[in-house]
C-alpha cells in the first residue's frame, strides 16, 4: 500500500494528467465541472457564481419534482435543492443543508445539479458535496433521497449521483450528502 494519502495521490494524478493535457482535456473538463474549489477560475461552477442574475423564465415547463418542490423544510427529499440528490441528508444526521455533521469532512469536489427555487422561480447550480470520513449516517428512511432531475450516467461524472464523492478527503468513506448553492444557473 502506498504511504501517500489519497489526497496526495489524487493531486499527483491530476498533475500528471494536466501535464499531458493535450490528450486529457476531457479529464480537465470532468474535474473542472465537478470542482467547487476556486482553484480553477474558468470552471462552469465559478462562472455560474459570478453571473449576473438571469431573468426569470416566464414560460418554463417544470419537471414533476419542480412542480411539487417546497422551500420550507430542508430535511425532506422534496426540498427544492434536492432535485438530483442520491444519499442521506446531512440535515438529518447532525449537520445541515451545507454543513457536515460533527466529525465528518466535506468533500472539496462534488456532483452538481440545477434546481429551481419555487420562491423566486430561478434555477440555481447546486453542489451536492458529500460528507466523508465517518461511517454511514443511520437516520430515518425519509431522509434517504434518490431524485434524478438532470442526473446523468457515471461517464458524465459531474452530473452523476451514484458516485461516492469523497475525493480529496482523508478517507473516501461516505457519511451523508449536502446541497450547497453555488450560484444562479446561467
Amino acid at each position, binding site marked *: 500500500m502506498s504511504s501517500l494519502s489519497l489526497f496526495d495521490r*489524487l493531486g499527483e494524478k491530476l498533475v500528471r494528467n494536466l501535464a499531458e493535457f493535450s490528450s486529457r482535456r476531457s479529464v480537465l473538463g470532468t474535474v473542472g465541472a465537478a470542482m467547487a474549489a476556486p482553484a480553477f477560475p474558468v470552471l462552469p461552477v465559478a462562472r455560474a457564481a459570478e453571473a449576473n442574475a438571469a431573468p426569470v423564465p416566464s414560460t418554463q*415547463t*417544470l419537471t414533476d419534482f419542480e412542480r411539487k418542490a417546497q422551500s420550507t423544510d430542508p430535511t425532506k427529499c422534496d426540498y427544492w435543492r434536492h432535485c438530483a440528490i442520491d444519499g442521506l441528508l446531512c440535515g438529518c444526521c447532525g449537520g445541515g443543508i451545507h454543513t457536515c455533521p460533527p466529525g465528518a469532512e466535506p468533500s472539496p469536489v462534488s456532483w452538481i445539479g440545477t434546481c429551481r427555487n419555487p420562491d423566486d422561480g430561478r434555477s440555481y447550480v447546486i453542489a451536492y458535496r458529500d460528507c466523508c470520513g465517518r461511517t454511514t449516517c443511520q437516520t430515518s428512511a425519509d431522509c434517504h433521497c434518490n431524485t434524478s*432531475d438532470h*442526473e446523468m*450516467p457515471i*461517464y458524465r461524472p459531474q452530473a452523476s449521483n451514484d458516485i461516492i464523492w469523497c*475525493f480529496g478527503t482523508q*478517507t473516501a468513506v461516505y457519511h451523508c450528502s449536502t446541497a450547497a448553492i453555488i450560484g444562479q444557473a446561467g
Partner: protein
Amino acid sequence: MAGLRKSRWAAMAIAAAGLSGVSGTPSARAAQPVLQAEQSTVATLPTMSSHWFLPATGSESYTLYNGDTAQILGTLPGDLISNAAFSPDGKTFYVAVTMWARGDHGPREDFLRAYDAHTLALVKEIELPPRALAVYKIQNMDLSQDGHWAYIFDMSPATGITVIDLKAGKVVRTVDTPGCALVFPWKSGGLSSLCGDGSLTNVAVDASGAAKVSHVAPFFDANNDPVFEQSPIDRHAGIAFFITYTGKVFETSLGATPTIGTPWTLSAAAGQPVATTGVQDVAWRPGGKEPFAYQRATRQLYALMHMGTYWTHKREGNEIWVYDTTAHTLLRRIALPADCVGIAVSQDQHPLLYALTGEGKAFVMDAASGKVLHTIDARIGGIALTPDL
C-alpha cells in the same frame, strides 16, 4: 423479573405436559433410540446451476440463492460499493472490495477476492489500485469470456481500466480512459467503455496483457438522451444493447472497431407512443437500479418499464416488457406484484426471471409465463447477478 421467571416456568410446564401427552406411555418412549451427540460440519455446494442467483443483500453481503427452491445457499462478503462476478466456468466467484484499515479511516485497501464455488472458501486476494466507488454499479467490473482477465473501472477522479490476469493472480496494467467509464467486455480480446461525448473507447488486450486503445465517433446524444450505465450484454457473442433514457436501443457488436446498429425504440416496438425527452411527456419508459436483462438462449431483452416523464430513469417499474431483439417486437408484458427496481434472468433454456423491490423482496418467476414461483423477503437489494455458464 420475578413475574417473568414465574410465567416462563408456567409455560415450560404446559409444554412438558403437552409433550408427554403426545409421546405416549413410558414404555413407548424407552423404545425410541437415544439421540446421539453431533459433530459440527460445514456444508458444500453442488455444481453451479443456471438457476442460482446472487442478489446484493443488506449493506454488507451478496447472498447466493437457488432460484428453484428460493433457499439460501451461502453468503459472500460485499457492501454497496463492491462488485461481484461469476467466473464463466462456474468454478469461482469474484468480489471486488474496498476497505479502510480502521473502519472509517486508516489506509485504504482495494482487493479482488476469489471464492471457490464449491466451498465458498476465500482462495485468493489480488491487491488492486483504487477502484471507482459508486453504489451498486454492476458494469464497474466484468470478466473476459475465457475467464483469463478481469477488467475493473477506476475513478480517482481521472478514469481508467485496471486489467487483472486471473490465472497469474496479479494486476497487469491500468489503462487511462479519459472521459470514459464502465466495462463492456468483447467476445474476446478486450472491452469497451462508454464516453461522455456519446462515443466508445475500445481497449484491446492481447495474450500478454498489453493494451491498445481505439475510439469510435459519437453515436448517441449524451447531453439529451444518454445511454444507461446498466445496458445489458451478451458475453458469448460480444454484443451490447446500449439503451438510452428514452428507450432507443443500439445493438452493438463490440471490438476494436465496433459495429453499431440502427437504433430501434422500446416504446415504438411495443406499439406505444414514442417516449421523448419532454419533462412533461408521460410515456412508458425503462427505469430503476438494474432495469435490463438479456436472455442469450432466446435473444430476448427484458426491460423494467414504468409510465413517467423524462428524468425518471431511476424510478421503479410496475411491468417487465419482453422483446425479440431480432425482430424488434414486443413479445409479452409481465405485470409485477409490486413495484420493482431491478431485474435479472437466468441463461438456460427454461429461464427464471427475478424482480427485486426496493424494500427487500425478490419475486422468482417463470420467465415464459410470468407466473410468480416464489417470493423471498430477506433484505434483498436492488441488483442481482446470474451465472452465464
